[in-house]
């Protein structure tokens, strides 16, 4: 069926087009041995991948686990190249695209020596998709198309969907879907929050709270000959200066999240050929979320005025020099087939080519709403890159239409506690996803139904459009519906406004080989294909 090819190819179709900025690697034979040291900006809140959504978990913990499927580590943004990790081959959908049957490899073992079977995979995905009360799963919404997961025998796992969906395979390949031991989950469903025991390329070795996590090579890893490294050391370093200096002083080879352009330039100037830079558009964006339950942000005119004031086209070139943002875009990953073109963007509030005209309209709307002297507090995360930098820029943009804004930047914990409680005026939130998958990634904009949308709004119209978009197999129709969805979210109702899409820059020591950048800082961190050319 024609739709299958199209729909499965769609989610990542553009990512690879912009992700390959790194110099093409000359094929080399990987060398075994050595310890990879890398810096991580933050510590994981827990060790449970099913619950968490942060790179702080993925970077130090993903190497300990296997997943069912994953993007190809050597071509992580290619939509045609999802590959099996513990399954034997990527399945062809049956039952009109509604059933996916995976066969599990023979001889898989957890690090404690117990066998890994389809029953463990079943327990894992039951926990992720249909979590029991008291269990927190962060990606229920993205796998909402799954009707059931079953395991007819120890080697087979079957996913049955409610309707055919091109979003399923990319959603299944999320790197957070660690395969857990059924025995451990049966004994204590929350065991994995505080413990690590997987079947991945590395075995958990040491954790020194606040300092580092180390792993040693798993000699029984199911990808033969891998991992190449003897082990890894994830070093926690909260300040960016410290992380850059660690790379510069060769105390670490890389930081996998991303550094700003200035740090890249400094490292290149200081290290020359000893540093290699990989860059990519980043499947992350900052979202301004007005609290719809608080006046005057319940008024669409005020929300529209705030987005109209922002000069995205003018700000992007300058901000891209000082922050990890670069691209002007709508709600879909830039350059993706479902993303708005520049001409389409320019039809929406806040994206017009004439900023003076936009700001005049913003002032008119504020006057009409009786909010000419609007003052509010912008709730933000106390993280420089890119939160406070973009926040500071937005405050300057809003000042141009006479709106006075105070920034309140808080640590991640208190910041999200504030957002969840609804005690804020306007918040600067983010939407970072792993595998580029717009049909699932845009669930963030569904309002309170999304679960992680703090704007506290509901809109039946956009829910209906999104549902329809997910059920249609016609890409042209999906695109048309996406424009309608986007127009309501960003323009007519201005439920959210988007600042700029992020841009990922990874300068790493040239001796680190085998690692390829992707459009997500969550992807490609199992480290089984990484090796050191020393």
């Amino acid at each position: 069926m024609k739709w299958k090819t199209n729909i499965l190819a769609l989610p990542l179709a553009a990512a690879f087009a912009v992700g390959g900025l790194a110099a093409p690697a000359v094929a080399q034979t990987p060398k075994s041995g050595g310890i990879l040291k890398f810096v991580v900006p933050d510590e994981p809140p827990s060790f449970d991948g099913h619950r968490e959504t942060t790179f702080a978990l993925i970077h130090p913990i993903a190497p300990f686990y296997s997943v069912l499927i994953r993007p190809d580590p050597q071509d992580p943004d290619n939509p045609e190249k999802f590959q099996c990790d513990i399954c034997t081959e990527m399945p062809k959908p049956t039952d009109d695209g509604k059933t996916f049957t995976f066969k599990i490899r023979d001889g898989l073992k957890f690090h404690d020596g117990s066998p890994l079977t389809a029953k463990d995979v079943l327990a894992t995905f039951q926990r992720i998709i249909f979590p029991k009360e008291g269990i927190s799963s962060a990606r229920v919404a993205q796998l909402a198309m799954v009707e059931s997961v079953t395991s007819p025998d120890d080697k087979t796992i079957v996913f049955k969907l409610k309707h055919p969906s091109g979003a399923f395979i990319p959603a299944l390949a999320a790197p957070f879907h660690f395969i857990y031991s059924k025995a451990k989950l049966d004994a204590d469903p929350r065991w994995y929050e505080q413990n690590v025991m997987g079947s991945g390329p590395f075995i958990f070795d040491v954790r020194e709270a606040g300092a580092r996590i180390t792993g040693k090579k798993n000699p029984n890893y199911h990808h033969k000959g891998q991992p190449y490294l003897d082990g890894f050391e994830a070093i926690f370093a909260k300040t960016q200066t410290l992380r850059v200096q660690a790379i510069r002083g060769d105390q670490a080879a890389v930081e996998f999240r991303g550094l700003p352009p200035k740090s890249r330039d400094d490292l290149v100037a200081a290290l020359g050929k000893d540093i290699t830079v990989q860059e990519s558009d980043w499947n992350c964006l900052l979202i301004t979320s007005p609290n719809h339950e608080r006046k005057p942000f319940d008024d669409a005119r005020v929300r529209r005025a705030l987005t109209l004031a922002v000069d995205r086209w003018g700000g992007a070139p300058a901000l891209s020099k000082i922050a990890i943002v670069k691209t002007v875009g709508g709600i879909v990953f830039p350059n993706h087939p479902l993303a708005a073109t520049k001409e389409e963007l320019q039809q929406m509030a806040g994206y017009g080519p004439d900023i003076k005209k936009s700001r005049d309209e913003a002032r008119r709307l504020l006057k009409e709403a009786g909010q000419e002297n609007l003052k509010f507090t912008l709730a933000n995360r106390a993280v420089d890159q890119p939160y406070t930098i973009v926040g500071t820029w937005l405050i300057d943009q809003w000042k141009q239409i006479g709106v006075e804004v105070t920034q309140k930047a808080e640590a991640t914990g208190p910041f999200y506690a504030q957002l969840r409680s609804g005690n804020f005026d306007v918040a600067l939130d983010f939407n970072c996803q792993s595998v580029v998958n717009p049909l699932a990634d845009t669930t963030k904009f569904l309002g309170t139904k999304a679960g992680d949308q703090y704007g506290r709004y509901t809109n039946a119209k956009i829910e209906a459009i999104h549902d329809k978009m997910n059920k249609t197999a016609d890409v042209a129709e999906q695109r048309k519906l996406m424009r309608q969805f986007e127009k309501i979210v960003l323009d007519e109702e201005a439920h959210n406004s988007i600042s700029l899409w992020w841009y990922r820059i990874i300068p790493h020591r040239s001796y680190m080989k085998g690692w390829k950048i992707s459009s997500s800082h969550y992807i490609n961190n199992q480290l089984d294909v990484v090796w050191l050319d020393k």
Partner: protein
Amino acid sequence: MATETASPSTVIEDIPRKPTVLGTLGAFCRDNPLGAFGGFIVITMCVMAIFAPLLTSYDPTDNDFGAMLSAPDWDHWLGTDQFGRDLLSRIIYGARTALLVGFVSSFVGCFLGLILGVTSAYFGGRFDLLFQRVMDVFMAFPLIILALAVVAIFGTGVFNVIIAITIPVIPRAARIVRASALAIREMPYVDAARANGFSHARIIFRHMMPNVMAPFLIILTAQVGQAILIEASLSYLGLGVQEPVPAWGLMLRGGAQEYAESAPWVAIFPGLAITLAVFGFNLFGDSLRDWLDPKMKT
């Protein structure tokens, strides 16, 4: 019998003249040139803070992406930061933040410390014993640690930073003032006031507090410099005032780390402003102590 009577004019000459304000200032400057220099820095800061809009033509929060990280030149005497904001304007306006936080937190903290210290000394006994142990608990924490804890509880922002700095100042001021008040408590005029049936409040506020003003002023001036330093530290750590408010510590945090090599002016000038301000207040405070301390005069 010859008698000598002092003429009225001779009597008048024997009474020392009350020194004028200018005369006192002159004497202070002559005796304490370093203190005078400190005072000059303090006054310059105050002038900068009060007349900031007249001293610069740039708005300290205006972004100018056409002038990002410009080196010092005729347009921007101290250069610009990563948002293209004029550093001179931000330093001048930053004096407002520094002085607001410095003066308010020091004055409120020292004043509360004054009341508590004198009261503790006046009542003595178990009250004094218990109260001083509570002060010991607070003083066991370094000033910056206690301020960090307070900010962690109350959150960031100018008002909360003032609270965060005020609280640790109170026990320090109370302890110093109490030491002087203990001696004053034993003075005959305090006994006389008690014998006359004056209320405790009247004795504390009208008879004891005015007599511990010298140590109070000294601790006050010393704490302003400390408060400025703590405000800068908290802002540098991201726990003080927030962007885009012009504040020296925040300026060091913002771009100074990242651009220290390629645009050193982003780090140098705010750092210099903090150094000078603290240096000025400390010099002034030390000289004031020397000048007011009768033992130092001998």
